[in-house]
């Protein structure tokens, strides 16, 4: 296995897979690293009713399985390993896994999110013994038995409906007032129509009890404070997710809840590092939005690499001094000054060359060199900035700059 790539994608859920598809189709040498299951959280859900084009239904594993093959079809490389450390500071990013060390010019973080633990007594001890976060994994155990579902978002209600195919009775515990749920209306209605589903409102779980296996739960009414015991064989907890950003903490800016804020290009606060899918701060966490994020990040990363490589070869690596003019087509003044700077450059062609950067297309390099005013001319020598003039570019100012070349 090679160690050096154009793009490394961390995580092979729908976001990472879409990034892999787009990047390898653009001939970027791409590596997708996954520590667990290719397909991510989507691979653990049976019901997939809203992925565009699949109105006859498709399961999570089927859909993500296709995405996996799709990426491989374009030559995307896959590695089953766990990332343990990252160095994202330089142009060359370093990704350290349990079994290797890999480098890339850009990194896509697609580590996703995982079910949130509730943190009540008995939850940890009885995990896998009646406490579950994955209906498709464990539903078969509950044939003709009673289960409790905690939560009221789309995931909770959809999984509760799925569980009615197996269980005798499914009791959904909802923290809100009667009739209020976070799930979308169509899903709520389906749950109300299901004979096997019962609701307990204004309540939450206080404790999960059982001797080696779940036997009953203590349900607390948050309005009255009253606690009642309910006999049950299983507890399915769907109370949201937490981002998998432990590894990224301190390396890329995170929001208060630990998600990664990214802009429209999926760029994080670090150049060449992108965040896609559930791990990023976003409005709708679905397979389709994760896939869209992945496509955008791959395209943005490709453009980033091109720009950076051009800048490196045309400016930083040049022995001769380079006058870099930052201009913008939307800044009238800067447009008018382009011929002036061009003439200046040709006058001094024995000691300097000129490169123009359109800041409308490429803001990153301008930002890196703290260029705030249009137009600006920065003089580079041996990869370093040795002089700059900004604003009203007079011949006088430019001539002074030339003396530094």
């Amino acid at each position: 296995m090679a160690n050096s790539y154009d793009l490394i994608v961390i995580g092979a859920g729908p976001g990472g897979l879409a990034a892999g598809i787009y990047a390898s189709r653009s001939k970027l040498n791409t590596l997708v690293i996954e520590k667990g299951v290719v397909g991510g959280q989507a691979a653990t859900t049976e019901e997939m009713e809203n992925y565009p084009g699949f109105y006859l239904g498709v399961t999570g594993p089927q859909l993500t399985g296709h995405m996996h093959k799709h990426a491989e079809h374009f030559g995307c490389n896959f590695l089953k390993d766990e990332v343990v450390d990252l160095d994202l500071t330089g142009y060359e990013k370093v990704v350290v896994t349990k079994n290797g060390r890999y480098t890339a010019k850009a990194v896509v973080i697609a580590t996703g999110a995982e079910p949130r633990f509730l943190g009540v007594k008995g939850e940890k001890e009885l995990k896998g013994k009646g406490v579950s976060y994955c209906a498709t994994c464990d539903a078969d155990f509950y044939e003709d038995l009673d289960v409790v579902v905690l939560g009221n978002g789309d995931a909770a209600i959809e999984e509760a409906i799925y569980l009615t195919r197996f269980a005798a009775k499914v009791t959904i515990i909802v923290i809100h007032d009667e009739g209020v749920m976070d799930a979308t209306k169509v899903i709520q209605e389906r749950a109300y129509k299901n004979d096997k589903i019962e609701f307990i409102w204004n309540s939450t779980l206080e404790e999960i009890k059982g001797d080696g296996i779940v036997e009953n739960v203590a349900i607390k009414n948050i309005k009255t404070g009253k606690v009642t015991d309910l006999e049950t064989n299983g507890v399915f907890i769907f109370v949201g997710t937490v981002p998998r950003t432990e590894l990224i903490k301190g390396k890329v800016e995170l929001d208060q809840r630990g998600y990664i804020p990214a802009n429209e290009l999926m760029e994080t606060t670090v150049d060449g590092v992108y965040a896609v899918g559930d791990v990023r701060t976003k409005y709708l966490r679905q397979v389709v939005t994760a896939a869209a994020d992945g496509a955008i990040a791959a395209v943005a990363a490709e453009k980033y690499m091109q720009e950076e490589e051009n800048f490196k070869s045309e400016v930083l690596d040049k022995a001769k001094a380079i006058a870099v003019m930052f201009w913008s087509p939307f800044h009238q003044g800067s447009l008018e000054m382009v011929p002036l700077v061009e003439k200046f450059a040709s006058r001094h062609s024995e000691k300097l060359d000129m490169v123009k950067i359109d800041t409308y297309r490429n803001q990153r390099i301008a930002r890196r060199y703290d260029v705030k005013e249009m137009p600006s001319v920065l003089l580079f020598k041996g990869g370093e900035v040795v002089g700059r003039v900004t604003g009203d570019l007079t011949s006088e100012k430019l001539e002074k700059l030339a003396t530094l070349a």
Partner: protein
Amino acid sequence: MLEVNKENFEVEVLSSKGLVLVDFWSPKCVPCMELIPHVEELEGKFEQVKFCKLNILENRRLAMGQKVMGLPTILVYRDGEKVVELSKDFTHEDLEAKLIEVAG
């Protein structure tokens, strides 16, 4: 890996001398399917352990009798007594570490 079920579980696992590993799985459980090749690999490394797998779809009651109600779960028995219990979010590395612990 030896396929165990309600017919042979008593003989192959509970009354068996020495170390017996049972991988509880189901074809619907994606994490289980991912784990199986790794468990098979470990089978080659630990010759003193008998490796078994149990499909819970046909042996639900049996699994529940062993207090298994979630997948993936791996139990290791020594002389019929549970000595290792791994459930849900464990890796094959965790399993290997446990096996080294009990099998030495």
